[in-house]
């Protein structure tokens, strides 16, 4: 994101809205973006209404108020002068927006958001079948962000278990070698709001996958949200529950349920 210094009046509203907390007040009293930490999610640009005031007018009003020891309390969701502007991004920086702005469609998967399908269409794709388990390992979430260098560390740790990375997944598509989990060199220093490693393996591999995550989690400087999924048995029971509990982990009381209403229904 870029801030037009000619327009900015230093109100600070964009500082709070910034998902990464990387907009700050510069020495000149105007806001600036730490470009290395910005993930190009465009939240500031989308959320803050442009009030369309002339910068000189806003500054003059403030000076007058200040002279009387008064302040102006702006609405929290406005940019008085429309000073924010999303720049045209070139590769590899463009990968930041692709992974961080949910209104962007991932070219490789055709899916919005973080670009993954997981169980959402499992009723028609049959991606997870009887005996399969799917893991979604999301780095950077909640609210911290992640560099692909850290994402690679986790992918490589999991690749060692001979799991299958989901081909229709944006992170897999950035791997130079999906067998090793290695990610292409030119994006390793790019930072994104979050990115999801998506894999599938057999149910009996659950303890090994969790053990690998247990070890690699201490090697990354970000947080990881982990999800686990499987296709239900005919009676609606969930096969992965037994394996996860046996491995000593707690399952959330809430989660995601595919109702099986998609057509044509996948037949095993």
């Amino acid at each position, binding site marked *: 994101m870029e801030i037009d210094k000619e327009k900015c009046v230093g109100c600070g509203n964009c500082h709070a809205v910034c998902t990464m907390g990387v907009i700050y007040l510069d020495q000149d009293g105007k806001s600036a973006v730490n470009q290395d930490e910005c993930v190009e999610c465009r939240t500031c640009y989308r959320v803050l209404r442009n009030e369309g005031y002339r910068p000189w007018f806003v500054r003059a009003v403030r000076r007058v108020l200040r002279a009387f020891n008064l302040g102006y309390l702006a609405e929290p969701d406005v940019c008085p002068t429309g000073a924010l502007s999303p720049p045209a991004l070139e590769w590899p920086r463009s990968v930041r927006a692709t992974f961080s702005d949910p209104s962007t469609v991932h070219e490789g998967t*055709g899916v919005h958001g973080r670009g993954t399908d997981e169980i959402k269409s499992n009723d028609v794709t049959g991606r997870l079948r009887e005996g399969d388990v799917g893991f979604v390992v999301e780095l950077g979430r909640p609210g911290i962000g992640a560099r692909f260098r850290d994402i690679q560390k986790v992918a490589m740790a999991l690749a060692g278990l001979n799991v299958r990375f989901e081909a229709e997944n944006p992170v897999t598509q950035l791997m130079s070698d999906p067998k090793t989990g290695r990610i292409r060199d030119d994006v390793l220093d790019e930072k994104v709001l979050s990115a999801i490693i998506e894999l599938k393996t057999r149910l009996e591999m659950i303890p090994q996958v969790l053990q690998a995550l247990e070890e690699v989690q201490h090697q990354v400087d970000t947080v990881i949200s982990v999800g686990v999924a499987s296709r239900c048995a005919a009676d609606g029971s969930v096969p992965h529950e037994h394996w996860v509990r046996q491995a000593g982990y707690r399952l959330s009381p809430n989660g995601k349920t595919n109702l099986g209403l998609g057509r044509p229904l996948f037949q095993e």
Partner: protein
Amino acid sequence: MTNTLHRQGDVEGLKGDFVVFAHTAKGINKEGSGPKIQEFMRICLRHNPVNIGDAKQGNILQEDIEIERLISRQGDGAAAAAVFTDVGTLQRVIEDLIRADLGICINVSGLLEEVRDCCRKAGIERHSVEHSLGFWGATERLPERHILEIHTMCGHGMVSFNLIRKMIEQVKLRRLSPKKAAKVLAKCCECGAFNPKRAELLLERFRKGLT
């Protein structure tokens, strides 16, 4: 989109938080799905969701969104979501969606036992289930539990920790009502999965000094 998987909170809070969303698969049921997704939206609207929208166009809590226009612009594969605050309404939404037989994939995020019971009452068994195994890694970088409870209602992470802190402060100082502050937070969540009613209840607790 694991964006609704990791919603935080105790079971009582989660009882008021169910997200229903439509999804399609390329080459299977995405092509020609536009009118079906529009019908999904209209069914959800009949049950008064507290939020509804899609990832491409935004949600009804944003100023420039008019819901009928949003629906009319939804094309094949639009990622639509609607939020409901009680299991009774969820039950009726599921029953209506089964009756409509749209052929698009329907998912529900929320308390798994409640959703399973809704399915059974409606005469179906759930197809697939996904659990959260929580947060790993550098968890010392995460903020307090109540900040996370609000933040995770937008799974894409568009509601910043700092904005939540600012809204809590504004509510405590009575500069903003919990309802108005919740609406500001909901604006950040593009796809419409944020639950403004639950956020309002949480902010109300801050105003009363209960959290």
